[in-house]
Each structure stands twice: as C-alpha cells, then as structure tokens.
C-alpha cells in the first residue's frame, strides 16, 4: 500500500485515486472496529483535534466527533454562533488562538468556498475540510463512494446519477471528482436553473428528465434542496420541484431494474425523496451515515500518521 499524498484533506480535486483507495482500505478496518463491542482504538491518544464549525451541522459534526472519540483523540468543539467570531475576530486569529492551545488537527466547516485552502496556507496543523460553502465536502464524497463500493462491490464502471441542486451543492462537486477518479460514470440531473453553466467540463453527462436519468443509472444520489443558499427563486415552488424531480415509489416501480438510493442528509421528506423510498430496502441512507464514521476515522488516522 502507498501512503497518503497530502498533509490536508481540502478537497477531492487535489488527491489521487490511490489516496481514495487507501482511505477505503483503512476504513474497512475501522468499520470492523466500530461494529464490535469495544469500539475504540488508542491510535490518536496524543492528538488534539479542534472541530471548528462556522455553519450549522448535525450529522457531519457528530460523525467527526464520534470518529475522533473512537480514535481516542482529545476534542475541542467550537461553533461560530457562541464564539468571538460574532465580536468580529478574523478566521486566522480565531484559528491561531486555538492552535496556541496546542491543537494538532483542525476540522473546519465554513460558508466561504476556499476557506480551508486559505487556512492551510497560514497554519501548520492538519486541516480537514468538513464543507466550505458551495465548493467541496470531501469526507461526504469519500463515504458516498465507500458506500457504493460496499453495496455494489466496486465503483469502477458503475453509473451514478446525482439529482437535484447541483449549483449549490458541495456534495455534488466532491462526489463528481471522487466518482470520476474511481472510474464511475456520472450524470447530473436537475432543472436548468440549478445546473452550473460549465458542468459539462467536469466530464459528466447532463440530463433534465428525471426518468431518463433513473433508467440510465445504477445509483441515484438525491441531493437536498438547499433553500438556505438560494437567494433567488430557482424554481416556482417546492411542490413543482417535487413533481418534476422528487423520487417516489411510482417512479421507482416504472423502472425495469433495481437501483440504489442515496441521500447525503438531512432529508426534506416529500420534496426530493418521499418517505416510502427513503425508508425502503433500496435506500442505503443509514449505511452512509454508519460508513461516515469509519471513513472519517480513516482520514484522520492517515493524516495524523504522517507525523
């Protein structure tokens, strides 16, 4: 096995397919560990990690925190709403103050695209991007691809449709990079208003008809409609979006094959996906959540192990 090529995990764009495979192989071990009675290993016992969240998060934050605890790391949690950021402190000042307390690794979520890259140029700790605005969410893409590999045996050659708000989704961008690097075919599907203008340059197919996309794919990754990032109206109403792009049982029943359903969460039930589909046996949504802990343990173990 090779070693992880980067000091930070800022995005999927700048890591190699070997790095991704290494994360997967390491995550296999951690998945076995988190499924046994004693779920903890001592690897990161002399490491302190700061979780710095400038944006709300439930799943990612809990997932990172559990992963850190299962690696025996010490943790400091920080959220913008309850900190001096609201008093006007800059990002570098905030982080440097935290680092002055001897923190070895920073997990950061920030609304500005590129915030983690900026930070990596100014501080020495390992940085893991937990989502930077509409740019990348690398650990989500890793756990999505890991879940596809687990369900279908491999990612190579599989057809994955990413459906929904492509423009505002960091999950979409990171997923496209990861899936392409692992040899999958990727299609994006959504209304033209939610499709970035140059999306074709990423080497993905573009489709505006949900049924065509579903008929083509092996895996459908249904994205959340990110109302909080939409200043303008990109579609007339949620009801209309749901009628055209919502995944429901009738649509699934019309297909002549079974497809795997994914969703990065949190789900807007009844908008991009109906409850009966989200809770069906085709859905691997909760497997994604479980795998998230193993994949994040693998990422932190590999980054910390570089010394």
């Amino acid at each position: 096995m090779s070693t992880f090529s980067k000091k930070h995990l800022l995005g999927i764009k700048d890591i190699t397919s070997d790095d991704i495979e290494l994360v997967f192989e390491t995550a296999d071990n951690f998945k076995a560990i988190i499924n046994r009675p004693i779920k903890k290993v001592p690897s990161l016992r002399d490491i302190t990690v700061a979780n710095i969240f400038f944006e709300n998060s439930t799943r990612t934050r809990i997932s990172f925190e559990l992963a850190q605890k299962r690696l025996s790391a010490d943790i400091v949690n920080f959220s913008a709403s309850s900190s001096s950021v609201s008093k006007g402190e800059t990002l570098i000042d905030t982080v440097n103050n935290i680092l002055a307390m001897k923190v070895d690794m920073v997990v950061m979520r920030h609304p500005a695209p590129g915030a983690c890259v900026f930070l990596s140029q100014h501080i020495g700790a390992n940085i893991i991007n937990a989502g930077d605005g509409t740019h990348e969410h690398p650990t989500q893409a890793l756990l999505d691809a890991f879940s596809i590999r687990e369900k279908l045996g491999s990612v190579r050659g599989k057809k994955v449709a990413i459906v929904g708000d492509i423009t505002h989704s960091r999950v979409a961008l990171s997923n496209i990079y990861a899936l392409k690097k692992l040899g999958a075919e990727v299609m994006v599907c959504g209304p033209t208003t939610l499709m970035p203008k140059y999306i074709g340059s990423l080497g993905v197919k573009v489709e505006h008809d949900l049924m065509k996309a579903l008929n083509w794919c092996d895996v459908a990754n249904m994205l959340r409609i990110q109302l909080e990032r939409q200043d303008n109206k990109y579609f007339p109403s949620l009801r209309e979006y749901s009628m055209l792009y919502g995944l429901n049982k009738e649509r699934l029943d019309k297909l002549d094959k079974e497809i795997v359903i994914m969703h990065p969460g949190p789900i807007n039930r009844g908008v991009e996906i109906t409850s009966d589909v989200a809770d069906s046996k085709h859905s691997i949504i909760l497997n994604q959540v479980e795998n998230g802990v193993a994949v994040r343990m693998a990422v932190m173990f590999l980054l910390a192990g570089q010394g």
Partner: protein
Amino acid sequence: MCSFKTNVFFGVIIYSMSSRTILEKKQFLVAIDRLCYELIERHADFSNTALIGLQPRGIYFSRRIHKRLSEITANDKILYGELDIAFYRDDFRRGKEQILPSKLNINFTVENKKIVLIDDVLYTGRTIRSALDALTDFGRPSKVELMVLIDRRYSRDLPIQPDYTGISVDTRANDKVKVEWKENAKQDLALIVTS
C-alpha cells in the same frame, strides 16, 4: 553460510553484508510439528482455545501451525483468527514510515478463551505488547500464551517472553532476521543478515 563481498562501483559501496541461514525447509517442518505437539500437550482438545496470528508477517507461520495442528488432531474446528495491531502500536507518529493497517479477521469472541498469539520473530516485544492491547479490546481472555518461530534472545525492550519457541538465536542490534515463506517468497527460509 553465504556471504557477499564488498563491491566498489565508481567509488560507491553498493553491497556489504553477509547472511547466515538459521532454518531451512526441513527444519521448518520439524519445528512446526514439534510446536504443534507442545500445543497439544497443554491444550488437549482445543475446545476452549483459539490460535491468533499477528498481521502482517506472523500469519504465514500461524496458518501453517493451524493447518498442521488440524491434521495431527483430526480436528477442523480449532478456532483461528488473525489480529492487526496497527492502531495499537506505540510508535504512531514517531517513525518515518506511515503505519498502515492490515486485514483483521477474528470471527469469535475471546472472552474466557485461552489464546495463543503467534508471530514469526520476537525481538523487542513491542509488537506483542500492542497485540495484548488489541486482543483485550475483543474481550477478556482467560489466558494468553505466545508462540514464536524465532526468538531473538537478550534483545527485549519489555518484559515479554515466549511460551513456545521454534528456535532461539543470539543476534546483535544491527542484525536483521528475515523469514521467507513459500506463500510470499517461493521458499521457506530464515536468515540472519548482518550489515
């Protein structure tokens, strides 16, 4: 005994080491047979005993022991697993090389079982210390024993000794003990390489 002379090529020393064979094919078979009978002496029917090989290099030896033991006792139900210790090592972030895990394969609980840990070479004892930590995360064994093919005597960093030994050798700190298996290197051979 075979040795390599120093070759000087364009003024650069490219090879300077000698090696001494300590075990060959036939001695491997004899040692494995003897160790199996020692196990039988202490464990009788193996109903509450599990053999656990240590990843990555101990598994070739432990698989041989498990196979031969199953043949001798005509018992194909002897519990066998393979333990990875990467997450328990005490040199994480301290060495130059990145520590990477190997496959873990223990499909039984170790609670109240007699465990025989199996590794190829015992040197500083640090691997075994890590293995003991890793093992207790699978439960509380009633007893843990250690079997090694080669015991490098007088070189321990920790108070750890084997219960079953294939061969004991005296080595210097800069010697390397190399074990090759048919499964990974075409032949069964154990060498001491002196640089």
